């Protein structure tokens, strides 16, 4: 799988280049050999693959934390886990799943597939994409190191003040949470810029705005949401850590601060966050449903407009997390209306998919099963969402297990099921091997049944009044049976994930060879080999429709005249994707990795001494300058192909 060396015997064939030229092209786009070369990679496929694997490791760790909570709750008055550790575990679970799994994995898939979907040779700003990965993985290591040292955060994944403030949370645990936010948000923001610029400027000629594949559209819209949402939580967590470390009073009512300010800033990020997870998943579903219904998605313009409408509405919902506070009643009515309105664009998409499936010829393979599982679970989660949008009902069941059930139906139904559909669908492209269908069906059914067994009883427990985030409950409340059922469901989910891991390992070793386009799909990633060559496309394609591989062959078919050396890409115009100019892309470099270490030193140091922000900036400045500074060699290569506009 590594492409540090190029095997001349296994080069893809080209229609514009002879074998020696293809070899040179592939060597130009290859990583450098060795460990340094591995750390220096700026290939979006390698960054994306590492990102996916790392975020899945965090998914498993977050799942193990969930399993430990379910074990504790399996019977009343259990003393397996004490309250202090339980607080850390549910905070770690929520923070890991939201900040280290759900958002990053969606961006990870985008980093891998958006350039392939739009016919580009790499992602825009590949060094920044590499930095985004390194800062993410260091943030995750930072969080779990804290947990291992008994300074894991214990204030819930949304860290409400005053609980998380200096008075009620002395020690370093809440600081650890606040800095985790900084790590992950820096990573997400930078990756978003890479994705936006890739979609705007690196599309293959002919891929006009109305021909962009729906997953690329979804990733693009999501990246914009991240640009506007994530700054809110970064600002809030910075205020929190300053309240804790340097004595500011943002959230201190005694000195003019305000606790609800935290909730406003947090949920101004936190609600869009749900859609930041959900919208890429919608794009994945569209990618999967078209080939498995064997027809293009019905209502493409409605689909795209729905994605954009969802993104806008997603910013008008945040107060519905605050119905139990003293926000003005009129304001609550507005947010109720907005919360119900957002069901409309989602419904438009669901009806478009139903129309697609209805009129298609279905191919019931594992990716489609996960897509159909999405419909069932998300609709249930959506219905409880409409219920919770009502202030009267929400006030009753706020902070109960009903909310836990709702959010898992939405996030697992709306995020994880589409993600698994995407894994089964795109795994052959990433590895050249098919995942096993038999294990895939086991994976699906265990997950689907286990999920409903684990989470459906929580609706009832919530209505019966069981509060969330309690480490145990008395026997005479009568919640024991449903909790035990829920725990058995959690075990089933764990088995399902184990089957998935076995499937991945077994298929990597001995799975059926995939070929370029095993599903007969229509988008550009299937036009290249599986796994793709270093340069993605030996012949950069020209696009004439929404599903280029399902279109009759039309001239022009490909781009000619890009250099085999240096790394040259074609930029196209934003709307019509007309060829605009050539651009030499950056070579691999170790500096994004070094910069991420320097940034980590600053973030960690600042928890212990505010002056670390000043001294820590010096190594960052040095590393980032070295990253930017062009070498003589790079400049010489660029000049060889330079042409002034």
């Amino acid at each position, binding site marked *: 799988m590594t492409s540090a060396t190029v095997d001349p015997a296994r080069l893809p064939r080209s229609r514009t280049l*002879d074998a020696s030229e293809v070899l040179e092209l592939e060597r130009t786009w290859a990583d450098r050999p060795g460990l340094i070369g591995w750390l220096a990679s700026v290939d979006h496929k390698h960054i994306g693959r590492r990102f996916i694997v790392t975020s899945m490791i965090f998914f498993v760790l977050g799942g193990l934390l969930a399993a430990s909570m379910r074990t504790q709750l399996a019977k009343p008055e259990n003393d397996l886990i004490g309250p202090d550790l339980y607080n850390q575990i549910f905070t770690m679970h929520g923070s890991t799943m939201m900040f280290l799994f759900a958002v990053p994995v969606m961006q990870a898939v985008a980093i891998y597939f958006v350039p392939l979907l739009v016919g580009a040779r790499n992602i825009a700003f590949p060094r920044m994409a590499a930095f985004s990965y390194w800062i993410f993985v260091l943030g995750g290591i930072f969080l779990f190191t804290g947990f291992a040292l008994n300074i894991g955060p214990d204030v819930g994944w949304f860290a409400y003040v005053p609980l998380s403030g200096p008075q009620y949370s002395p020690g370093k645990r809440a600081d650890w949470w606040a800095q985790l936010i900084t790590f992950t948000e820096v990573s997400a923001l930078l990756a978003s810029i890479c994705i936006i610029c890739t979609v705007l400027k690196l599309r293959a000629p002919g891929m006009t705005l109305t021909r962009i594949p729906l997953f690329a559209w979804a990733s693009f819209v999501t990246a914009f949401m991240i640009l506007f949402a994530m700054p*809110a939580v970064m600002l809030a967590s910075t205020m929190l850590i300053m309240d804790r470390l340097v004595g500011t009073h943002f959230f201190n009512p005694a000195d003019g601060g305000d606790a609800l300010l935290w909730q406003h*800033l947090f949920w101004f990020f936190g609600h869009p966050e749900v859609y930041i997870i959900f919208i890429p998943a919608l794009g994945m579903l569209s990618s999967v449903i078209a080939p498995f219904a064997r027809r293009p998605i019905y209502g493409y313009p409605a689909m795209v407009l729905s994605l954009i409408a969802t993104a806008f509405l997603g910013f008008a919902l945040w107060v519905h997390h605050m119905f139990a506070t003293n926000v003005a009643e009129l304001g609550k009515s507005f947010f109720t209306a907005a919360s119900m309105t957002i069901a409309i664009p989602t419904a438009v998409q669901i009806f478009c998919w139903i129309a697609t499936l209805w009129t298609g010829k279905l191919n019931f393979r594992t990716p489609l099963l996960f897509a159909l599982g999405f419909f069932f679970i998300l609709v249930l989660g959506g219905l409880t969402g409409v219920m919770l949008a009502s202030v009267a009902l929400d006030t009753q069941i706020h902070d109960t297990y009903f909310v836990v059930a709702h959010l898992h139906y939405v996030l697992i139904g709306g995020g994880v099921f589409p993600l698994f559909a995407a894994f089964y669908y795109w795994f052959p492209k990433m590895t050249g091997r098919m995942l096993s269908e038999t294990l895939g069906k086991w994976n699906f059914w265990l997950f689907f049944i286990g999920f409903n067994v684990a989470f459906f009883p929580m609706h009832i427990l919530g209505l019966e009044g069981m509060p969330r985030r309690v480490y145990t409950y008395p026997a005479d409340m009568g919640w024991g049976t449903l909790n035990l059922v829920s725990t058995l469901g959690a075990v089933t989910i764990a088995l399902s994930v184990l089957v998935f891991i076995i499937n991945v390992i077994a298929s990597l070793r001995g799975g059926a060879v995939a070929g370029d386009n095993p599903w007969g799909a229509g988008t550009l990633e299937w036009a290249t080999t599986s796994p793709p060559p270093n340069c993605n496309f030996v012949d950069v394609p020209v696009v004439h429709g929404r599903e280029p591989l399902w279109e009759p062959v039309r001239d022009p078919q490909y781009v000619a005249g890009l*250099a085999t050396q240096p790394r040259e890409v074609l930029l196209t115009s934003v709307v019509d994707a007309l060829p605009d100019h050539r651009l030499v892309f950056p070579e691999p470099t170790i500096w994004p990795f070094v910069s991420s270490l320097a940034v980590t030193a600053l973030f960690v140091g600042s928890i212990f001494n505010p002056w670390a922000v000043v001294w820590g900036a010096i190594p960052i400045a040095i590393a980032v300058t070295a990253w930017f500074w062009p070498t003589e060699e790079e400049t010489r290569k*660029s000049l060889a192909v330079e042409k*002034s*506009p």
Partner: protein
Amino acid sequence: MNAAVVSRSRRRPRRVASNDPSAIEVAELPSYGFGDHSLMWWGTWGIILIEGTVFALAIATYFYLRTRVINWPPSLDFPGPLWGTINLAIVLASAIPNQWAKRAGERQDLAGCRQWTWVLLAFAIATLIVRIFEFKSLNCRWDTNAYGSIVWMLLGLHTLHLVTDAYDTAVLGVLLITGPLEGKRFGDVAENALYWNFVILAWIPIYLVIYIAPRVI
């Protein structure tokens, strides 16, 4: 640097006959561009959107905290406007060398790029020096009360942008003198100017909020 013509032997491995309908020939397209042609221009706008959102939310926080107390600033003197107003004048004046740096970049005039980038850096350093006195004239500390916290944060956020862009400009200024240079660097000069325009424009609302708002709300 445009005149530099190095061996092109490895450049175009195969030229398609101009009448070959199956291919689009792109070898003669330019190898860099300005404004919305340029990838870096879009990337710079991405950064501007992120940081503009941070500024907007910090300003929203200021007005939110205003609603929590009766007097504003709460039992403190107004911030002294002298140094802030001087800085407003310097920052607004820096738009002129900034625009000339941008034009020099777009004209691909290396001498002009060098000259105006360094003049711009001088302006940036001047604002940073005045900024020190600004912090002293706020008449509060960050830990006095929530008003002090948000005022220091607003001024601190803008200062952070001044520092990073001054450093950016300095690195670019040195590179323009020492090399290695290529045509793309003209685009970097133009995009550095775009970002500096953002730092200028951001200062206007923050100035109004810090110095004028407490006197009128």
